[in-house]
């Protein structure tokens, strides 16, 4: 297993990434470098490959060719130990939350640190409580996921991912499954993470949020990075007709 580079200029390095599902090429050569602390919003039509790209970064999907390095760790799919080492530095938040229904909120957050990082239960409890407080759910430690609203569950999911102290957080349409009135509480937590300097890659449909919070926006179209640039520029002056059409179709 290669040693991670000691000075990390690039947090996420993607070079010419290609991925096909059967005969359908979903990623046609993605190149992207993400600096530490950068917030990247990935937008585009469904089917443009956004989620697939995100899932490649933590290895939930394998890619066919190209290079991918996260925080100095290359993706070596056959090496389970290497993948586990990588995943301790990358956190993922899912559209459908994926909380563990048989565990309380507190134990959801504690599970990975105790099993993977071998933290003592006492340490894990303290950390879990702190994180719950951070996402505004301090009193929900003993509650179970089915007792919480969607927005609360997603915030627990964020706390669970943060418990592993990742360097990068991947957010895969994390508000798409929420009722409109619950979206705000989740986005507020994400914004505070961005303010603290977390490197974020978000696939999102929340355009005004993306515009406000991200450093750069990536517009994906048919498996390629079609446009990329600072948020203000991209939204106010889209240079390609595809992006213009996409933005006009989103009523935000």
């Amino acid at each position, binding site marked *: 297993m290669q040693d991670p580079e000691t000075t990390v200029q690039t947090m996420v390095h993607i070079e010419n990434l290609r991925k096909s599902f059967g005969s359908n090429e979903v990623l046609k050569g993605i190149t992207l470098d993400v600096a530490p602390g950068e917030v990247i919003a990935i937008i585009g039509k469904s089917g443009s490959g956004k989620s697939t790209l995100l899932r490649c970064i933590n290895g939930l999907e394998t890619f066919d060719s190209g290079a991918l390095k996260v925080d100095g760790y290359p993706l070596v799919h056959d090496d389970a130990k290497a993948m586990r*080492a*990588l*995943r301790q530095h990358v*956190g993922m938040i*899912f559209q*459908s939350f*994926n909380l563990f229904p048989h565990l309380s909120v507190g134990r959801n957050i504690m599970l*990975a640190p105790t099993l993977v990082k071998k933290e003592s239960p006492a340490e894990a409890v303290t950390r879990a409580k702190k994180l719950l407080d951070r996402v505004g759910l301090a009193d929900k430690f003993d509650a179970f996921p089915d007792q919480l609203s969607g927005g609360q569950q997603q915030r627990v999911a964020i706390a669970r*991912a943060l418990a592993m102290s990742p360097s990068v957080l991947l957010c895969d349409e994390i508000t798409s499954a929420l009722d409109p009135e619950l979206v705000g509480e989740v986005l507020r937590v994400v914004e505070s993470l961005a303010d603290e300097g977390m490197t974020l890659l978000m696939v999102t449909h929340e355009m005004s949020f993306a515009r406000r919070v991200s450093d750069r926006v990536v517009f994906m179209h048919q498996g390629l990075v079609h446009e990329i640039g600072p948020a203000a520029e991209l939204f106010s002056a889209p240079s390609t007709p595809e992006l213009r059409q996409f933005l006009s179709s989103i009523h935000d």
Partner: protein
Amino acid sequence: MRIELDFASILTQWPLLLSGVFWTLGLTAFSAVIGVIVGVAFAWVRISGPGWLKWIVGSYVEFIRNTPFIVQLFFCFFGLPMLGIRLSPEAASVIAMVINLGAYATEIIRAGIQATPRGQAEAGVSLALSRYQVFMHVVLPPALRKVWPALVSQIIIVMLGSAVCGQISTPELSFVANLIQSRNFRAFESYIVATAIYLMLAISVRALLNWAGPRYFFGGRRG
């Protein structure tokens, strides 16, 4: 025509009946524990094992589920000695019961695992849990909860099926009933008492397992 039934002569043999009950419960408990472990392991194989192993486990499951338990038992007790494996009646009974329950448990648990949403396994993987940890901590508990009633029912079925083990002289309840009636010629009464005891055992064991499951095996909440 008056039929005279004499239950007293059976009930005075209660120490013997009690020993039969202990044997039945003991055989069942032992086979249930090992059978469920076998079921978990083989369910894992059927879902994520290598192709050739999947085929072996699948064949074992189909063969056991499509042949009678008594034939499996006779094969273990009478047939295996021809290969040099001599088993006591008790050992043959347990082995046959484990082999039998294991096949059914494999299918039941496999259905439970496949009903657990994939997203939860992905969340576990994303948290850097190993495959084994994802299986034991994220996938298996909700699966067990979902299929617990079916699993308990199957354990009861195996317990009732163990009555056949008396035919190879395992000293369980049906053997005891046979023994009693051979001495006092009260066959009908003897079997009625044994049947009533079996019914009480079935009800109690089911209640016990339904209580123990959420407590000890898969957490108290919806999975």
